[in-house]
């Protein structure tokens, strides 16, 4: 197991480096000069050259990358162009808020999605399977930003039972999950965010369960006279590894893909920070935010890989 952990980390390392290269090159995708946003319009050629030198933009690109990576590894992501605060502080605070959303969306979507998929997979072709499959297709086809807006229309505008946007009266610094006056701000974004994972997860769970139900060992179990609940227990245990891989991807999606939902609910998380950074053309924040979210995603995949190996000896031996 130890050597497996080592090997997987070794495998994730080049990917992490590749991700950092992509994040670094985002600056060069931007139209015009990377310094355009901070330079005054009437800057003389000397000023431009001076600032370019100051920022290190006059050096060869590989050197720039190395310097940038060195700074990032020491926790220096640069300074936000619009707020002048260190990017690290901005990103850390917003990641924390996104994590709060994910913390509640994950159990909701994984639990519900897995249960729906398992039930559907155990009764293929029955009415309950049709309902679950239909719901799942709807879940994956829903634009969740629109669902969020519809929720706001229904619960905040028409019925006035839940708050439309934001993170509570005291802002994100003093957000208190335990008090209802703050926690109710969570409900709509969490439910909206859970929609898509519920659909994807119930789909893949159904596929895994119904495939395993057709395997030889299930026939053997049945021939040996095992009761149906005991057979289902075996099937569910075996369906867990492939479903966990999907869950890992979905966790990454919840962390990194919440940008649209956070924008709808003005939730001060990493996605909202990202969309603000795009509007303000704040490249350091954009870069830092994406790097942080992608690293969370890489780390999640690594953890899921290892968890899969931990619960499934077949993967360990392979």
């Amino acid at each position, binding site marked *: 197991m130890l050597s497996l952990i080592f090997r997987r980390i070794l495998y994730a390392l080049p990917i992490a480096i590749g991700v950092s290269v992509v994040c670094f090159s985002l600056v060069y995708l931007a139209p015009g000069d990377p310094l355009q946003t901070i330079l005054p319009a009437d800057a003389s050629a000397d000023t431009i050259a001076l600032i370019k030198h100051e920022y290190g933009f006059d050096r060869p690109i590989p050197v720039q990358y190395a310097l940038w990576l060195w700074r990032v590894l020491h926790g220096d992501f640069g300074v936000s162009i619009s707020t002048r605060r260190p990017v690290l502080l901005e990103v850390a605070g917003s990641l924390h808020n996104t994590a709060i959303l994910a913390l509640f969306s994950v159990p909701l979507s994984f639990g519900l999605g897995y249960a729906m998929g398992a039930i559907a997979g155990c009764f293929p072709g029955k009415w309950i399977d049709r309902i679950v499959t239909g719901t799942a297709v709807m879940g994956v086809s829903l*634009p969740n*930003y*629109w669902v969020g807006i519809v929720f706001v229309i229904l619960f905040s505008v028409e019925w006035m039972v839940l708050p439309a946007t934001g993170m509570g009266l005291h802002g994100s610094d003093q957000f208190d999950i335990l008090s209802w006056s703050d926690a109710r701000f969570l409900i709509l974004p969490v439910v909206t965010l859970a929609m898509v994972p519920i659909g994807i997860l119930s789909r893949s769970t159904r596929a895994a369960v119904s495939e395993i139900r057709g395997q030889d060992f299930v026939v053997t179990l049945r021939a040996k006279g095992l009761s149906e609940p005991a057979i289902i227990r075996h099937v569910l245990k075996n369906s867990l590894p492939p479903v966990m891989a999907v869950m890992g991807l979905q966790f990454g999606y919840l962390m990194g893909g919440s*940008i649209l939902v956070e924008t709808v609910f003005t939730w001060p998380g990493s996605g909202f920070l990202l969309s603000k950074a795009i509007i303000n053309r704040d490249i350091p924040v954009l870069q830092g935010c*994406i790097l942080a979210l992608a690293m969370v*995603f890489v780390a999640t995949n690594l953890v899921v890989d290892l968890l899969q190996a931990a619960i499934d000896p077949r993967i360990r031996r392979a």
Partner: protein
Amino acid sequence: MADTTLMMPSTSTATWADDAAPTQQVRSYWQSVGYRLRHDPVTLFFGLVVVLIVLAAIFAPWIAPFDPYKESIVGRLKPFGYRGHPLGTDELGRDLLSRLIYGGRSSLLMSIIPVLCATAIGGTLGVIGGFGGRAANTIIMRTMDVFYAFPSVLLAVALSGAMGGGMTSGMISLALVFIPAICRIAETATTQIRNLDFIEAAHASGAGTLTIIRHHVLGNVLGPVFVYASSLVSVAILLGSGLSFLGLGVKPPQADWGLMLSTLRQSIYINPILCALPGAAIFVTSICFNLVSDGIRAAMDVRL
């Protein structure tokens, strides 16, 4: 099943082959795919809806009852049926139904073009990776792994955000998001058949690599790639509209579902129903493409 019996007399011998012994195989692969599609009412129905949506987008100038760009200061955010506007008017007094019809153009373009580009590029890269030897495979597939390490929404937003937004950069970023996934499918399919005997036989009889790829590999790879690409159209509609919703895709005043959703969102306290409509258009289009893709996958008997 009643359908099948009714169809019998009209479709002559081909239909009978289904019940006959397997040795009398009359139908080709594509004939049986067509047969299965024709007997799948769900796919047929949603396929029809897709065709209608596409036709409405193409012939928008003839179908739309009003000019989608004509503003009216007095007639803003009016309810259904106001002065002949069937679905009311938007925040600048433009006819909402006409804008919904025109909006399908950019939304469909922004989803179908990236998927086509990604299929061509990703498919080619995948076949090269699968057939071109170890070095090519490592370079291509490890690069794809890096792009795989981003959640798709994040990558699309990051790329088009860095490129400064706009419809073209939105389409480029969507294509880049889809290339790794299609490349993986193509690579897997290529590696699976590369070691089969008939490829070796073709090699032995002197066929060049390009000939083998053209005659033997492509036919086996295109099926899975096509099915997967068709399922991406629905994802592309959601992502593309999402980009426009964030202000990264289509620019105003052009009509686009995602963009309309974001501008009408500001007036949910005045006329909430209007804001729900563009989203419903996105949802309906996306679910139709999804179900059609499911039907094609089942009919082509492809496992991904």
